[in-house]
């Protein structure tokens, strides 16, 4: 079973954000694209990651984009910031997946799809809050947290999955009283994400809090997006389609609107 100390130890083991990435984010926040691209250029692994993400088919660019400044220019600072946040998450990526049949390639695909769809959604629903844009990047971390925490209780998890219809998050709640999104919010705090981003992430799993204020609509959309992305064949084959314990009751109009946005080309 999972003890509080196991969870705390895991959170403690999450590495801090490297200085170079902090500086790059700082430059982006100051809207200094050239400075941000120059800083990013110093981290070869980051440049390689940016190239990998931006050249994924889902972004739909005809020619390969190689230059960092070119990437920054094409994507715009807000989206580059999202991708750099996603790069933070890669710091947590396990070398080998044990609980889920997943891999780095599939993980990066998921990151790219979430970033792309989330940007489209926020744009279409007219939410200008830039801090919400970054929130989507930390969510794939929940998958890694789940993989790492459940490693030591793999047997119990497989037993529960066979006999009970429980999502991984429901098992985590039963074992530790915490949701995956609460843990993701703690990591986001450790990585000095803006306060509104952290609050938004924690609110995703909160079905009790009645009033989510200005973010209520965005929260409904992010839940839908997660349910949608985790219903794909890849996620079903990796036994990840029931990772989250999210509400499944959505307004019909919202669902239609969601479908329209998702089906639009980038």
């Amino acid at each position: 079973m999972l003890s509080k100390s196991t969870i705390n130890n895991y959170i403690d083991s999450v590495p801090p954000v490297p200085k170079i990435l902090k500086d790059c984010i700082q430059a982006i926040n100051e809207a200094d694209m050239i400075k941000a691209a120059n800083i990013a250029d110093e981290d070869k692994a980051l440049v390689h990651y940016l190239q990998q993400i931006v050249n994924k088919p889902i972004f739909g660019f005809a020619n390969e984009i190689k230059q960092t400044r070119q990437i920054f220019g094409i994507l715009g600072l807000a989206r580059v910031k999202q991708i750099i946040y996603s790069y933070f998450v890669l710091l947590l990526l396990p070398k080998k997946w044990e609980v889920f049949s997943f891999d780095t390639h599939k993980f990066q695909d998921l990151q790219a799809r979430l970033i792309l769809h989330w940007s489209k959604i926020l744009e279409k629903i007219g939410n200008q809050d830039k801090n919400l844009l970054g929130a989507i990047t930390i969510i794939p971390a929940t998958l890694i947290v789940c993989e790492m925490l459940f490693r030591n209780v793999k047997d119990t998890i497989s037993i529960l999955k066979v006999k009970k219809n429980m999502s991984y998050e429901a098992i985590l709640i039963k074992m530790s009283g915490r949701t995956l999104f609460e843990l993701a919010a703690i990591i986001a705090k450790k990585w000095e994400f803006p306060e509104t981003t952290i609050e938004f992430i924690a609110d995703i799993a909160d079905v009790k809090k009645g009033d989510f204020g200005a973010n209520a609509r965005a929260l409904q959309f992010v839940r839908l997006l997660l349910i949608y992305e985790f219903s794909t064949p890849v996620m079903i084959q990796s036994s990840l389609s029931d990772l989250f314990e999210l509400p499944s009751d959505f307004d019909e109009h919202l669902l239609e609107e969601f479908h329209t946005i998702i089906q639009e080309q980038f």
Partner: protein
Amino acid sequence: MKPVLKQKVAFFHPTGFIDGNNAIDIIAPLDIDELVRLKPDGIFISLKKVIFFNKRGICILVESLQRVREKNGAIIGFCDYNLKKYSMIIDIFKDDLFFSLFDTCEIAMLFLGNTPKDAGEKNIIIYHDNNEYKNQLAIELYERGYAPLSAKDEIEFTSKARMADFALRYSYLGNFDKNPTVFIRENIIIYTLKGFVDSTMDNSFDMLYHNNSLQVGFKVFLFDASNVSSINIHGVQFISKLSIIGAEYEAVVAICGLNARKISKKLVHDLEDSGVVIYPNITDIFADKELLAQTHSTQSVVKKSKGITKELISYLPVISEATLKTIEILSKHISVRTAIKIQPLEPLNSQEALSVTLGFYGDIKRVFILIFEKQTALECCKILLEEKHNNSELLEALSEFVHIVGGKIIQNISKMGKKIEITMPRTFENLKDIITAQKGKKGAQIDMRIDNKPLSLFLTK
């Protein structure tokens, strides 16, 4: 996606969106093969966590279920939907609705699961716009020992549904025609026969399940022929054969619901000659106190000639390790072995003990028994139970828990190059029943303490 098995029913719980892209992965070809092998009575798809599905997606799912049904006759369908999802399914399949629909998983289990002791006290209300469908549902439940109330209109249904344990509003029986389906009521295994009972019984009857039920000590097997059109000589021979096999285990095979239109006099005599007991209808068998007593007071769960062997002892370490590890994982307590003995079953000195038997078959045939203090059982099953639960839910969770232990034992035994399978566990609420069932039989008994409370493991042939 792996289904969750509840007794003889498999439930798939897809989440999110179902369309032509992902439906094939929900019931993948490997899952179909596994379901064909498992021979469940029912396979259902729960739509509880599904927020959207389209025609293509739902048709692919039905096709996959249909492929299993063609092989083993399983009853298939959907459950856990709201009015909107129900209307969509009706709209997609219109007049070709050959599968079953049940408002919830729990309602599906009323029709396909074992009948609980307090079945008659369950408050069940049924309404359907189509009177015929409503009556079919009510009759089926009535035959299983429930006392459903059929609402005359929607107003009556709505007013009574709030207080009901089960409210069936959008349920539909469909082709509820598996021959036979099986369920357990008051320790009697009931096979429900339908249509024509002939040579096809050889293929559709789950002989493995029947033999395992004999192994773990069930003593009365009833064939309910109330809905049968006719039984021919092949059907009679099949039931007679089961009666003769059962005699070795001191088990009784009974049949009810026969009349002159269904079976000839000569064939009835043939049944009687082979020891099959004939009752007019199902209520008569449950009124037969003598027979009911026999379901509890038995001599031995297996053929008397068998005893313990060196081979049996050789598997003991593997079986006990798998058992203890699972108990430790789920109860969060360390176990301490206090004694290993070769003796007849000597149960715990406890007022509140629960026990479970499980049969192994395949390369190794054994009967495995675990006896828990109620508190230990509660701790082992904590994660399988809801906060609020009653005794029968605890027994069901305990049965699931022992099934998990059995799964672990299968894994460990397979590492020794032996292939085994397990029966469904049978739970005993009363220590006296298990002692009587094992009277005079020697086996290997491991006594241990979990959080200072006693627990016994007994392995016999």
